[in-house]
């Protein structure tokens, strides 16, 4: 017999977030103090502050949270996590929300998923990432105007020998792919 857990009256959204976040159980201890929202370098740009998002998760406001820009504005600086007086892994919750948002097709307002996809596609192809490949593909497909604006910078980087045009390919790329495929397969089971 295990200790009684008051899981019955937790919202579905809350239970999902807890399940998808390592040490996510801490979320129920939130005091709504706002030290996360106050610390976030991008907090001013978010639809909802991380604190508000935690309240909304508990209140089962799934649609509003998963379609918001909050988690996509997260720069993974970990200020919220390191300052949280209740030891809530807020940055990891942001990652969980990103994953849920992509999985449920709710990530519409941001290019971040596209960048992530471009990046990981390259890793799966070569085993390593390289900025030029990411920048060129991602910008070309997603932000052609920005490509023009930053081309000057790209040229300077190239001139300094800082943009590799070809990636390094690892030897055991097949092994890496086997690991990735297996992991992807295992994560489907949840």
């Amino acid at each position: 017999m295990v200790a009684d857990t008051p899981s019955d009256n937790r919202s579905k959204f809350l239970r999902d977030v807890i399940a998808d976040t390592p040490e996510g159980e801490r979320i129920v201890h939130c005091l709504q103090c706002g030290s996360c929202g106050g610390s976030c370098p991008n907090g001013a740009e978010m639809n909802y502050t991380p604190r508000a998002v935690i309240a909304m998760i508990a209140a089962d406001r799934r649609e509003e949270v998963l379609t918001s820009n909050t988690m996509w504005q997260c720069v993974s600086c970990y200020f919220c996590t390191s300052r949280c007086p209740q030891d809530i892994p807020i940055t990891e919750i942001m990652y969980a929300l990103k994953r849920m948002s992509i999985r449920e097709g709710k990530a519409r307002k941001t290019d971040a998923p596209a960048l992530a996809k471009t990046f990981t596609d390259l890793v799966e192809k070569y085993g390593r990432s390289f900025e030029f490949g990411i920048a060129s593909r991602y910008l070309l497909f997603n932000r052609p105007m920005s490509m023009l604006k930053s081309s000057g910078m790209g040229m300077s980087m190239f001139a300094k020998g800082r943009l590799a045009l070809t990636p390094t390919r690892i030897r055991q790329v097949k092994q890496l792919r086997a690991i990735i495929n297996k992991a992807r397969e295992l994560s489907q089971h949840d």
Partner: protein
Amino acid sequence: MAEKVGVYVCHCGSNIAGKVDVEDVAKWAGEKVKDVAVSRDYKFMCSSLGQKLVEDDIREQGLTRVVVAACSPHLHEKTFRRACSNAGLNPYLMEMTNIREHCSWVHKDRAAATEKARSLVSASIERVKFQEPLEPMFVDVNRATLVIGGGIAGLQATLELADAGYPVYLVERQPSIGGHMAQFDKTFPTLDCSACILTPKMSEVGQHENVTLLTYAELEEVSGSVGNFKVRIRQKARHVVFDDCTGCGICVEKCPRKVLDTEFEAGMGNRKAIYMPFPQAVPRVPVIDTESCIWFERQKCRACEKLCPTNAIDFDQEDEMIEIEVGNIIMATGWDAFDTRKIPQYGYGRLANVYTSLEFERLCNAAGPTNGKIVLRDGKTEPKSVAIVHCVGSRDERHNPYCSGICCMASLKLGHLVLEKTDAEVYSFYIDMRTNQKNYEEFYQRLLGEGMRFVRGKVAEVTDAARKPSEQGKLIVQCEDTLVGRQQRFPVDMVILMGAIEPQVDAREMGLKCGISCSMEGWYTERHPKLDPVATMTDGIFVAGACQGPKDIPASVAQGAAAAARVAGMITKGKVMIEPIVASIDEEGCSGCRICNNLCPYNAIEYDAEAKVSRVITALCKGCGTCVSACPAGAIRGAHFSDRQIFAEIQGALWDAWQPRGGASEEAEAVPVSAP
């Protein structure tokens, strides 16, 4: 000889009966367990009718042993012992089985809870058969009391007892009594001047015929037990002869060495190398701080000695040990302030105009370093805006998870003082406002009316990194205004950090000296959090004030008085009962190996070199039983917790696991591993 055991299973309303089939347990015990003469279940065993049931059965059925299966023995053991006593049965022949806290309240499954209850009852039945009649012991209570700590809680306790005519020793480690309260300007919510209400109490203590005041002194060692403690106290060398000093203050005035006063003035002001912490100090006898005195540093000066009109200065004075005997001890050791440097994002120590609340108390105190003028560190500029930050190091898993309790009210008080004395705007950054005592909420309302601004949000950081011109040269308080749901930056001139209330750094060590324990955080543990808040698990040791948990002045005073009342009760009664749960050594069996001698932390075992045996000094033994389990010859007996009793209890607890040849109780003494 077969005992006649009576078993009583309590329903406790539905508290037990709701999860344990009490009728079944009683029936089972009556029918299946050997030596049970009577077995009943009853709605409320602790009621007078329930107790009567036991008494009548003892008288009428001639019961020789009683088992009451109900709640924790810590709640009702005394009740049922008394019932047995009333009916002429020795109270130590009764055993309680805990089937409420340890069973019905913590298990979901009725069948499993009932099965466990049976095992627990069975264990008690087997055990009780081996229990022996014991007689409680009584000792005289010494009328003197030791109070440790001269803050407001200790002062109150001292005065209550002294006024009642009992002698009190008050030990304080600082050169003066008064504690933290002496540092404050005003007290909430009445805004009384702190010194005006405190100093009369201080001088009363200083002059009281029943009080022996030992300041600048430390507790060294406590031995003995309730009624008769022996205490060693280290009187630190003041380098001023107490009886010769008149307190004229010439020495302080003429001392050429000025040092930063990090204690009373919280680093906001200076004092001399020879000093009294503050003008109203009690006693008015200064001390020499040997760390900063020029004589102790480089054998020069002696200005104080030359100028002292009564030749009271003594550079050669040494620490002195004082031994006293008391019947009771009250711990009132108070609190310490959280080190706000541990939260670097608040900038204390790096950004000049970030203050701790104690620093600010001194800043606005009329007797403080600025005579009560609220100015920035430059000593002249009045702030135009002040931010008060709550919960600095409290309600924070990284520092102290508890709420410090008093900071909300203290920040309202400080906010009021800023509004009263300056034209500044005041912002208070809080998580939750906690104002739940008499007239506290009214004080909050008053500050709302006075224009203090409240922002609900824990401050994320205090910085001098300006992002726009209006922030230049300011301290910027960044937080989320959680009621608006937006991140905000507040440029201010001054920031006050309401640091957590923490236990004294050496609270644990001091507790150990007196034999009392601390919580994980370091607060002294009271005997019962609701019903016995000033007693401790150690008889004769009481706690009062903030050493037991964060507390404001009214609560500290109330506890000081409560502890004194408890002590007065002990003294009036004159005698105290001591549980006869002690060890004794069978001299025939003792081989004189002396293993037990070193095991006892109370030195209750002495060795008779002539007879070559060890003996227990009953008055010193506390009954832990460690020596009993260590004796290689099995010659030490622990009363009420003998090997035989515990073996029988184990066997009873496992009645359903062990299949003895002839029933549960027969083999109790013939078990494979038993003490000789």
